[in-house]
């Protein structure tokens, strides 16, 4: 049976999350929790230029997370894109549910929206801290 919610991309990133861990000397960090299910993430960013994150470049990212497959997979994919310079600071602030759905290759039900937005919110919170 086709599992609409669980593409190979999701399962792959959940089983082998990329860039997982701590970052030495981060310039920005933030934590987010999803009180509904207890998912947690802490992101570490190293940003060059501009203390408030504006006009800066994300040089590196790591994260520590605990949670469901969707929240871990999104964190992993975002981190990978940031490290590969495929995702810039200006873009993370504008990302929406539909962008993440596109990355995952699946549609997300409203009940799971908070799962896929957790890491994005943490990154944006870190950048504006």
């Amino acid at each position, binding site marked *: *049976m086709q*599992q609409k919610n*669980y593409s190979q991309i999701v399962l792959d990133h*959940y089983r082998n999350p990329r860039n997982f861990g701590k970052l030495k000397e981060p310039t920005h960090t933030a934590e987010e929790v999803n009180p509904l*299910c*207890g*998912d947690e993430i802490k992101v570490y960013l190293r940003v060059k230029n501009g203390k408030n994150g504006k006009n800066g470049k994300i040089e590196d990212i790591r994260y520590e997370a605990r949670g469901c*497959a969707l929240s871990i997979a999104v964190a992993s994919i975002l981190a990978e894109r940031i490290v590969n310079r495929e995702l810039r600071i200006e873009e993370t602030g504008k990302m929406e549910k539909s962008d993440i759905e596109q990355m995952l290759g699946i549609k997300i039900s409203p009940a799971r929206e908070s*799962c896929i937005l957790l890491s994005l919110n943490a990154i944006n919170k870190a950048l504006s801290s």
Partner: protein
Amino acid sequence: MFNSNFPILKRKINGRRLVYLDNASTTQKPQNVILAMTDFYEHHNANIHRGIHTLSQEATQMYEGARDKVQKFINAKYREEIIFTSGATEAINLVVWTWGHENIKRGDEILLTEMEHHSNLVPWQILARKKGAKLKFIPLNETWNLKLETLNKLITRRTKMVALTHISNVLGTINPVEKIIKAAHKKGAMVLIDGAQAGGHISVDVQKLGADFYVLSGHKMYGPTGVGVLYGRKEILENMPPYQSGGHMIRSVDWQNSTWNDLPWKLEAGTANIADVIGLGAAIDFINKVGLRAVKNHELRIMNYVLRELGKISGIEIYGPESGKDRIGVISFNAAGVPPHDLASILDQRGIAIRTGHHCAMPLHRKLGVESTARASFAIYNTKSDIDALIKGIKYAIQLFCS
């Protein structure tokens, strides 16, 4: 059993037959409950009490008739001991903000258990903070039953209230409330039993139990949402101040002062939730028709079956008593390698509804050592083939995630 009485069970979810296993959250509604409420609105709708016209008399009879049904259902001595509320949560809050406010003093103790739903914990926390009282908790043992041997130490002369759930909404544990009530009364403490998970699953006799307060949730026992029951012993309710005030609950009103109506209306301010109360009455008719003994036997069979089948899957951790006899209604578990939320999504794709999360019992989950669990919970319409679908879905999820 009785599946044809539940119209919603004909629904397809994601192209599959609906397998509804979220009954501890809310049960589905039988046809006679739905019909009773539409019948009220189509043929009898009017405000109750003091109306001279025909419709008002009919509505009053139907509403008060539901009270009689609840009285019989839990074997209360007097009909005026039955107070309608918006749910179990409001029933507990009513006790906290009337009886509790009057009777809990600085230094008093309120005894709860480690398995309480937030609705039988948070109101007491707020009261205790306000009054300078202390909350204590009956701990759990390794088989997820209450450690009864701690009771003698925990209930002291300072204990004014013992409030506990009849059946745990996470563990399914059936608590020996009769014993606990006896122990509490020996030391002069009051007892409130949260029967939200017991109503419609096991028979409840408030006189035999000796409970001072007993709480029911209508929507968890085949009734509509928005209605619950507070049972209180008459002499206690008589001495309680009003909860909310305004219309209906008064006898006479002056510019400066008012006097209160008799029980039960003293504690039911404003226009009642008439249609839903009538719906709850119909839900009790349905339960009586099935028979609580049949319900209990059916649920025990389902519980034993699910325990056995889940137990066969490696990597499944089950929370709650091991024996089907010590538990009823709910089973919480985790499948190693499959986060509960993902399991719920995968099952939903197959038309199977379960719940995941902390089930409004965060402190208990900390005790379990997990953030969240998956919970399947049962009602009269669940069948062995529902359980087979659940087990198959869980195996599929494990294979998807762990291969």
